[in-house]
């Protein structure tokens, strides 16, 4: 290419200025205004015998389970597809819309709502992980039967706005060079084999992340004759990130969490609210 051809693009790019946003790491990332995350649950507002929310929940994230002398609601955000149907179905406001999207979790249990949610005293840094991977972390993505919604948001990570490279995180073609297997989709019968082969090809230590509700639990699309229920009973998972799809900052948060660079924010199905304004609508 001649200078005459490339120069206008160079000037065009420079004229755009810097559009990459600062990573604040507190769930208040810019550009996510009005984004609807996981609905918040307040069981104190529930009325006896009501099951409107459970009936409106297609993926079965909200279920009635026996508890003591009467049934109680079990809320599993690992199955939530953020469709907001429960918010609309609930007659008493026990489910309310929120901006809570930073739902990356190292344990599956923390995605299930529990009354005794305790704020963590900050995750202890495993210096070794940070030292080895902190500035050079390579991801092999495998689509195990997604609807392409998760891919759309994963592809957005490399746009100039999020610019994932600046955080030392890269996508790589070969599993041999990968530190993290990032899986989307409920795992179809035909992708199960290639997925396991990709995992086997990775050098240790290796991590696995279930990105999107399908990979965490199957979501709305899992089950049936052609799908499993995400990575359950397929691979050991180090990071669960429900969302349908998770927005790019939620993915970044989960990746940095894996690298011990930010603390987990979800415990017992609720976000730790210290030091963030999550939940308050962004201006």
């Amino acid at each position, binding site marked *: 290419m001649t200078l005459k051809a490339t120069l206008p693009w160079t000037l065009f790019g420079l004229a755009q200025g810097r559009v990459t946003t600062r990573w604040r790491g507190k769930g208040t990332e810019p550009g996510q205004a009005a984004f609807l995350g996981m609905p918040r649950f307040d069981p104190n507002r529930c009325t006896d015998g009501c099951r409107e929310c459970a009936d409106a929940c297609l993926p079965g994230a909200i279920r009635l389970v026996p508890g003591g002398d009467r049934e109680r609601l079990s809320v599993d955000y690992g199955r939530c597809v953020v469709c907001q149907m429960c918010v609309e179905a609930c007659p008493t406001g026990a489910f309310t819309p929120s901006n809570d999207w930073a739902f990356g979790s190292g344990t599956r249990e923390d995605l299930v709502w529990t009354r005794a949610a305790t704020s963590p005293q900050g995750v202890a840094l495993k210096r070794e992980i940070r030292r080895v991977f902190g500035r050079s972390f390579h991801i*092999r993505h495998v*689509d195990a039967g997604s609807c392409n*919604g998760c891919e759309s948001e994963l592809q957005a990570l490399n746009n100039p706005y999020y610019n994932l490279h600046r955080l030392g995180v890269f996508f790589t073609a070969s599993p041999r060079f990968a530190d993290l297997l990032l899986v989307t989709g409920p795992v179809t019968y035909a*992708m199960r084999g290639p997925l396991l082969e990709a995992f086997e090809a990775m050098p240790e230590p290796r991590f696995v992340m279930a990105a999107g509700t399908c990979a965490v639990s199957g979501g709305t699309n899992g089950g*049936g004759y052609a799908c499993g229920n995400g990575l359950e009973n397929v691979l050991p998972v180090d990071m669960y990130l429900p969302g349908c799809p998770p*927005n790019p900052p939620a993915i970044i948060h989960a990746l940095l969490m894996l690298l011990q660079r930010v603390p987990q924010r979800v415990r017992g199905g609720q976000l730790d609210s210290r030091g963030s304004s999550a939940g308050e609508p962004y201006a």
Partner: protein
Amino acid sequence: MNGSNTVKTEDLVPAELVARCRAALGEGGRMQFMYAWFPEGPMAPELRYVLHPGRARPPRIWRCRPGDVPPPSLASTAPLLSWYERETTDLCGVVFRDQPLPQSLVLLPGSRSDRPPLVPGPMAHLSYTPSPQDLPELAGTTPEDVQLLPFGPIRADVLESAQFAFLYAGEAILHYHPQLFFKHRGMEQRFEGLAPMLATVLAERVSGIGSVAHALAYCHAVEAAADCEVPRRATWLRVLLAELERIYNHLHYLGHLCHTTTLKVGEAQGKYLEESAKQINSRVSGSRLLRGLIMPGGLRREPQLAGLVAGLARLENEFQRYADRLAATTSHLDRLMTTGILGRQLAFDQGATGPVERASGLDRDSRRDQSYGAYAELPLSIAIGESCDAYARQQVRIAELFNSIAIIRAVLAGLPEGRLRTECRPPPRSEGLGWAETPRGTAYYAVHLDADGRLARVKIKSPSFSNWRVFPYTVHDSNMMDYAINEASFGLTVAGCAR
């Protein structure tokens, strides 16, 4: 909404099918898709053929009960039906007489199902042992010069899973064979037994980047079954959502196309504009993919329109500068022009749809020809290309993007007041056909309800199923260097195709 009353259903006996198909094509008609379902139990499949008798005429349905004799294949008369027949064989167990390519399509080679999965009864059990694809014998070449390049199903970068086999000699691709159904999720079966209202959540998750259009086509079908009239305000707002979807998809398309022509700043700018559009989506709907607003009968809640005019004006301004820059970049245009030629007749015969079809000179868009919602009242203009190549496919999308912005502006200027939704309960044993123009072409949903008013069968005809069928014809006899550009110029999604 879809003029449900104008969709005529006609009963045909199997022996009539070939002659009627030939006659319909001769009169300027076009077959759209076919499927099977089981209204009278697992032993008695019923075939449905959906066709358009001519431009700007409502679709027509042929209903056919094959009985004990295998129905004739229409693949030699209307080639685009071949994939639908093979899918029907895989999933419904109906075998077609004289099907020219009877191999399985949706179920991968090496997979075994104990029963056809869509036949009513217990859940089918699939087992799978990977086995090599059936590749053609190449005549007239020395075999040792031809190499096989298998690629996928896990591909480089963040891409959907699909496997491609290239038979090539040097730079020349002699034959190309895609295997697109690693992602088959059995989505049609997932609808069965659901209440029509709740299943909208599922329709939004068939093809994630077509959430609005899929939900729309699905809701149109349910509304046709319920014979309900959607309030005007909702039809206008649905157009707004559908065009916002087109905008972010086309911006992604251009960014990705620049990636394949190695125009780095062009790629960054396209994807930055896509991000801007997704943030607009998030402010309007709470979802970057515009999910969670559409429901049978109207909309679930009001979208947030404050600031949308200003946001769109800024986007349009930046897009204009971007499009101008692309139009002045010969290195980019050189790679597109004459790449991936899809002739007009081929596009028609194999069933190309959307921008791909329009770039090959076929003047068809369901927003105008089988008009739905508020499009008849809005400044819709259909972009047509002539050169049938990657360049035409880019140009059609650029023109559509500008038109989408103009349509949204008109929606905001003339948005009628009124209710957002109406009661929509399809009666038991009713059925409906719905469609919508996705950013990739026309999507159809056919819904059938059971005796309890729940979904008994949902057939999804997605545009990428159509365009993936067409695409390989533009790859055979092309060269390796152009492949990625050609694929990007089609703007395909595997999820929509595999379902």
